[in-house]
Each structure stands twice: as structure tokens, then as C-alpha cells.
């Protein structure tokens, strides 16, 4: 196959061509309440060709991996229709490598029966909690072998294993319905989702607790974010804005996102990097064959870097960061985050809430989205803070704000960094991409909270 790929890349009038072939298998298990509703296996074989001609792109995806030569020709032809100027594409060293998945307990080797037994146990814990109406469990694992080759001589085979698990407990009483979820994941280690009985039990009890909780009053508050939610904040509020594909063709946004600009206090450091090992967003090479890096987006409050593909880096005169990712062969790679986190500071949780007379402590992730300037994310759990103490439980709240203002309103950063491996990121129709995000506890002044 390697020779066939190399042959089909030769002799075309294109500035750059790449071929990606992908073989994958996956398992999915879904519970709703006491029913195991779906258990299924899938496998897939497909690929794509991407060609660059005079700044224009052609992209062809297919399941039939024969006649690669024809697909390359079609992609080049399409790119030629689009291309009208000189291509800009960062130079890269050609690489030949085979990367195998490093797995502690590969889910592919765990019997379906054992997986089911584990989820049965979690489900029983949720459903046996009084006032719990029902549960949802969604489990996915998958192994993908990706063969990547380009017209510059790079040939890389990478195998990746991903696991994700989402549990939700749904409590109901007097027509009220409340839920709490728990999202977990791992790059290839099934044991990361084992032994969670105590966590699952607490989750179910918290969902019941929400039934009698009041809703927050909408308005501006001092909010304290736990590591999970602060990680989502780093991802949504700042991470997406750091993706250079939003910026590279947009002069006005470039003026806003100028490197060296002050975005926050000197204690604020935000990092993204697939080179940080062992996390769901970790890898050796991105989907353009560029080695992974660890990139400081904000260092000591100053915008230092952004996330790049080869094209965005070249157009902005910066270096590629290895952040071009495609969720699968049906899509071309675009600029994506990997593992995104706020670096820890020095304060304890007690220090952070010590001078808050009235505020809201928000915990755990429910969702989040951004329009670059405005972001919104929701906490699964919230408590009032009164006179420096955690007070009554509130219904889940949605926080929203303007990234430029909010980052500068972060005035305290904890010392307790935790990474969250659950969930996934969506962009340009490609979802859910395995990522992780994290943070220590942080405090934000004047944050907008939706409520009654």
C-alpha cells in the first residue's frame, strides 16, 4: 500500500497533495433507565485526498480505497478551479514514522460482557437512589489506524484509541425534572472509567438535591469556577479565539488578537498542547504530519501564540503548532485544540472565597459554546457563596460573557490544577473531537449569570 500511495502522489501539477487512509472499529453501548438500549459494533474503511493549487483547495473523500490515482486527479482538478494566487503553506520536514497506541488497558481487549457488567453496576447505583426517575449512560470506544502520506515524502502510520463515557442521573418529583451528568474519557485506558461507584452515587444524590433547589437570580456576580468548569471556560472563551483559522483572513480580528497584547493579570497562563502526554487530546503528529507541540497561548497575561495549521501559520508569518486535526476521513483537517488548560497559581480554595460577601460557586460542566467574542457555558451545579462560605444549592446556571472583559476579570487562580477528560469539541460540523481541558479553581469578577 505504501508504494501505491507514493505512486499516486507523483506527477501532478499541485503545490501540495496529501492522502489519508483510515481503518477503524468502534463499540457503542447506550442505557436508558433500566434498559440496555443499544449495543453495537461498527467498522469503517475510507480515506481522502486533499490538494493545494495556487492557494485553492480540493478535497475528495471516499470509501472505496482503490484507484487512488483517480481521486488525486479529481482533488487536483478541483483545487485548480479554486486557486488564483500563490499558495502559502509552511515548510515542514518530511517524516517517516509508525506510532502505535500506548494503552494500559486497551478497551479492544475488554470483553463486551465485562463492559456491560461495569455499566450495569453504575446504572444500578443511579436507579436505586430514591427519587431518581431514570438514567442515561452512553459509552463509546474506538480504535483508528491512520495512514498519512504527502507529496513532500512524509509517511506516517498512527494508531489511536479513545474512550468516552457519559453518565446522567435524572431526578423527578411533582412535575419537576432535574439532572446531573458525569463525563469521563481516556486515551486508551479502560481502567480510567472503572471504580467510579462512589462518584456515581454522589452524582445521583446531587440530582435529587436539585429538585428542591431554587434558581439563581439573573445578574452580575463574583463567580468561583471549579477546575472542570474553568477548563471549559479556557476552552470556550479563549481557546477557540486562539484558533488561527478564525483570524488569518480577518484583518480586524488580527488587530484585536495581536501577539503581545495584554489579556489578563500576570498570574494568568493558558496552554494548549498535544505534546502534553497521556491525555485525550494527545498525539505525536497532527493530521498534516506536523509534530505536536506545547503552546503558551497566554503567558503572564500576555497573548504569546495561537494555534496553527500549515496554511494559517504561513499566511500569518508564524510557526505551525501541530493543531490541524480532522475527526475522520470525511473531513479535511482544520485548526483545533488538543489539551487546553489554565496553569495553576498559588491560592487555596479557602483563599479564593475568603473575601466574597455574595457570589456563586459553579461546578462541573454541562455544555458550552462560543461565537468568538461572546461565550456561554453552563454549570451542572451551583451554590451561593455568602460571607466567604459555601451556602445553599442552586439550580444549574448558565454563565455568559464577553471574552475580552472576562479574562481581565479573573483575579484569583488556585493551586489545584485538574484535567477533565470527558466531553468532546465540535467545530465546522466535526464533532465530538477528543480533547481535554483543565484548570485550578479561578475567580471571575462581574460575570453575567442567567436566571429568573
Amino acid at each position: 500500500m505504501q508504494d501505491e500511495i507514493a505512486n499516486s502522489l507523483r506527477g501532478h501539477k499541485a503545490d501540495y497533495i496529501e492522502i489519508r487512509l483510515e481503518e477503524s472499529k468502534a463499540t457503542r453501548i447506550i442505557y436508558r433507565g433500566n434498559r440496555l438500549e443499544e449495543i453495537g459494533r461498527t467498522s469503517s474503511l475510507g480515506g481522502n485526498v486533499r490538494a493545494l493549487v495556487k492557494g485553492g483547495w480540493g478535497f475528495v473523500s471516499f470509501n472505496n480505497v482503490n484507484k487512488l490515482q483517480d481521486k488525486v486527479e479529481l482533488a487536483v482538478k478541483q483545487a485548480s478551479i479554486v486557486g488564483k494566487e500563490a499558495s502559502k503553506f509552511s515548510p515542514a520536514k518530511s517524516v517517516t514514522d509508525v506510532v502505535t497506541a500506548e494503552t494500559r488497558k486497551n478497551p479492544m481487549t475488554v470483553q463486551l460482557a465485562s463492559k456491560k457488567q461495569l455499566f450495569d453496576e453504575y446504572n444500578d447505583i443511579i436507579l436505586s437512589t430514591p427519587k431518581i426517575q431514570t438514567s442515561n449512560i452512553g459509552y463509546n470506544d474506538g480504535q483508528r489506524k491512520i495512514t498519512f502520506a504527502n507529496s513532500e515524502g512524509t509517511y506516517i502510520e498512527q494508531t489511536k484509541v479513545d474512550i468516552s463515557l457519559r453518565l446522567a442521573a435524572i431526578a423527578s418529583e411533582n412535575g419537576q425534572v432535574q439532572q446531573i451528568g458525569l463525563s469521563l474519557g481516556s486515551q486508551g485506558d479502560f481502567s480510567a472509567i472503572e471504580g467510579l461507584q462512589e462518584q456515581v452515587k454522589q452524582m445521583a444524590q446531587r440530582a435529587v438535591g436539585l429538585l428542591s433547589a431554587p434558581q439563581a437570580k439573573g445578574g452580575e456576580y463574583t463567580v468561583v469556577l471549579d477546575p472542570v468548569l474553568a477548563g471549559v471556560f479556557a476552552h470556550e472563551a479563549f481557546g477557540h479565539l486562539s484558533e488561527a483559522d478564525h483570524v488569518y483572513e480577518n484583518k480586524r480580528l488580527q488587530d484585536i488578537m495581536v501577539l503581545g497584547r495584554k489579556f489578563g493579570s500576570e498570574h494568568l497562563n493558558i496552554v494548549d498542547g498535544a505534546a502534553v502526554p497521556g491525555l485525550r487530546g494527545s498525539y505525536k503528529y497532527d493530521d498534516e504530519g506536523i509534530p505536536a507541540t506545547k503552546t503558551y497561548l497566554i503567558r503572564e497575561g500576555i497573548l504569546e501564540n495561537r494555534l496553527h495549521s500549515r496554511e494559517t501559520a504561513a499566511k500569518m508569518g508564524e510557526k505551525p503548532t501541530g493543531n490541524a486535526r480532522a475527526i475522520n476521513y470525511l473531513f479535511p483537517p482544520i485548526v483545533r485544540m488538543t489539551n487546553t488548560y489554565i496553569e495553576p497559581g498559588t491560592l487555596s480554595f479557602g483563599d479564593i472565597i475568603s473575601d466574597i460577601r455574595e457570589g456563586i460557586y459553579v461546578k462541573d460542566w454541562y455544555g458550552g459554546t462560543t461565537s468568538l467574542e461572546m461565550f456561554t457555558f453552563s454549570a451542572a451545579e451551583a451554590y451561593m457563596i455568602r460571607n466567604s462560605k459555601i451556602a445553599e444549592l442552586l439550580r444549574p446556571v448558565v454563565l455568559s460573557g464577553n471574552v475580552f472583559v472576562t479574562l481581565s476579570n479573573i483575579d484569583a487562580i488556585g493551586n489545584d490544577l485538574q484535567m477533565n477528560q470527558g466531553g468532546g469539541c465540535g467545530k465546522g460540523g466535526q464533532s465530538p473531537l477528543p480533547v481535554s481541558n483543565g484548570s485550578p479553581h479561578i475567580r471571575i469578577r462581574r460575570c453575567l449569570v442567567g436566571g429568573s
Partner: protein
Amino acid sequence: MEDILSQAKKVAEQAEVFQISSKMTPIHFEANRLKQIQDKENIRTALRLIKGGKVGFAQISGSIEPSALVEMAVETCQFGMPAKFNFPNPKVYPKIDTFDSQIDAVTIDDMVELGEQIIAKIRQHTSEILCEASITRGIASVHIINSEGGEASYNKSFSNLSLEGVLIKDEDMLFVGDSHSSCHPILDFGPIAEEVIKQLEFAKRNVGISTKSMPVIFTPHGVVSSLIAPLVSAFNGKLVFDGASPLKDKLGEQVFDKSFSLWDDSTLPYQIASYPCDDEGVPSQRTPFVENGVVSHFFYDLQTAALANTQSTGNGSRHGGLPTPSPSSLVISKGDASFWDMVGDIKEGLVVELMIGAEQGNILNGDFSGNVLLGYKIENGEITGRVKDTMVAGNVYQVLKQLEAIGNDTRWVEGFLLTPSLHCSSLSVASKAG
């Protein structure tokens, strides 16, 4: 496919093979210029078995080795859910128009020209805007066969034009956009350009708004981005059966405003969500969810319907796995108020054009709470500008229980919802500026 079915029949009581193949050509404009042309071919084959009374499932994308697919499905059977249904016998399907052969006549050049024209039109209005546009044409073929003799197949053509514009002034970003989908080729960019220009006009200047309860008008885009997700989950037969829907005991009860009706309709000609049969081979139909405010029906696939002791409504849809209940096209009844009549009645209020994050709230309970990405302030019966840093929170059952007015400005949004603007008398609005 026949080969898979015959092998599967040897090892299982019942079997069903579902195959979808598609070919689509999307082209993308970025920063006002053509950036990429794509060509995507995809084929997916799924096998569902009932063996030992339990459901097994496997799916392969790409070329199939029938025995491998059967083996994978058999492995899952032992753990699968007990099957409460039989695969459908031969049926007579309604004739639903989902294919327009004119789609083949659309060339790449036509698509490029359409994109260039719409971007030029928008820039004529606002020269400094940066537009992203996508134009797609495609065809898909669906084929289902089962061991009970059931067989269905149909072709669908589809076309989409979507545009999103961003206008940045200092640190102020304005996002505008619209899209249109059809089984007919889309050749006219006019309605989308008109909508986007309307949004630009309304958002010409930024104005502050108070933090308090006030009247809110949801435009069709506002309805889809705020209110639909909680409704879709509440009418899902699966959530009803689980007891997780707030409407579970409300069949036949007046829950919504008397003037509010909502139905699902997979039979509408040339709508991209239409089909002669769903992904399990059940004939398509129109299913009323709310008739004059009264909850009248939930939507089902075969298995959920059997569990709930009712009939499938032809809403079994596959999203990469087993069929599950999903709406096709949703329609909200049209009212008689013009948009400007509704605006004219409001002294101080808000028009929600687009909300982000609304689905992150407790949608099971009907709660929504999100950031108004695009919204306009109403003062003394007139739209005076765009509001920013503003959140709206509410409960869909409270909003739809008493509507002030329903618009006559009905239109399709997101390819699956036909809705007018909805005017509700009071919602909680929180704003930084206030």
C-alpha cells in the same frame, strides 16, 4: 445486501439490512473568496438482528464482507435489548417527492457563481463584512430489506445555501447569517441575502437594555435556537416512556396556548427532512403533537412504540447506530399578526434573532437560558438597535402557555422547522449594560 440478509437469516430469527449511499459536492467560500471544493462519496451498511429475542447491531462503512458484518452483529445480540417488535411486512408507501433530477444539471460553475453573487450582494450593503458561504448539492439513496419480506428504497436530492457574515468594529463583533435547504436545486440567493441585510440593518447601532422582565419576540431563527430543543425532547416517545418528559401524563390536556399547534410531517414535498418511509421501513405520516394547545401525540420508532403499547409514527431515524425516535420536519401553526404589528405593540422589549447556549440548560424541564448573540431592542414600537451582553432565561412551557401573538411571517429555518415569529408577554432578560 441480499447476501447479507440470507446469511443473517440462517443465524437469527429476524434480520434487516439498511444501506445508505450518498454523493455530495460542497463548495466553501472563506473571507469572501472561494476556498475549497469538495467531493464526498460515502456508503454505509447496517445489519440489525433479532436473535434469542434480543436485538443485535453492526455497521460497516466502506466495502463489506457479509460474514464479518453478520459475525459482529451476532456478538452483540447476547447483550442486546429484548426485541418487542417485528420488522415491517411489505407495505404500501406514500409517494413523497424527494428527488429532483434537475440537481444533476447544477454545475460547479453554477455553484461558484451563486456564492459570488450572494457575497457581492451583501458587500454592496456593507462593504467591510467578511462572509463565509457554503453551497452544497448532493444525492442519497436509501435501501432497506428485511426477513419479513419488507422492502423500501428511495432517492433524495438535496441542495443547501448558507451564509454567515461577521462584521468587526474594534472589539465589537456582529454575526449575521441565514441558510436554505431544499430537494430542488437552489438557484436564487435573493431570500437569504434579503434576510442577512435585514439583520445588518436592525443591528446598525448598539443600544443598552435593562435587566428586568419584558416582552420578547422570537423570530423564526430565535424560535429554533431557543425553544425547539426542549420541545423535541418532551415529545420524544422514549423520554415519555422513561417518565423523563414533563408531558408524560399530559396527553389530551391543554398545556399550551389555544392558538399554538405543532406537528411533525415527513410527507411534505421536496423538504430535505421528508421521506416515503423512515429508517426502519415504516411509512411516513403527519403526526400532530399539539392541536390548539392540547397535547395530542408523541413520536415513536418501532421498539419504543412497542414498549409504550402504541404504533410507530414513522420517526425511526439512524444517527450512526440503531434507529431512535427523531422528528422529521416540524411545523408550528401560522398566526395572523405581522412582525411589525407585534413590534408596534411593545413599549420596551427584545427581539431574539439568535441565541447561543440555550440548549445547555435543563432542557428536560423545559428551561432555556442563553446568550443573545443577535437580538434587537424595541422602544415605543420600533426597533432601535442591537443589544449585546444580554441573556434571556425562561421555561418553554411558561412561554408557550400564553402567547401574546403568533406571527404570519412563517418560514423554514435550519432545514427542518417551519415557524412564524412568537411573541411572549414577559421573559427574564439580564444585561451587563443594564
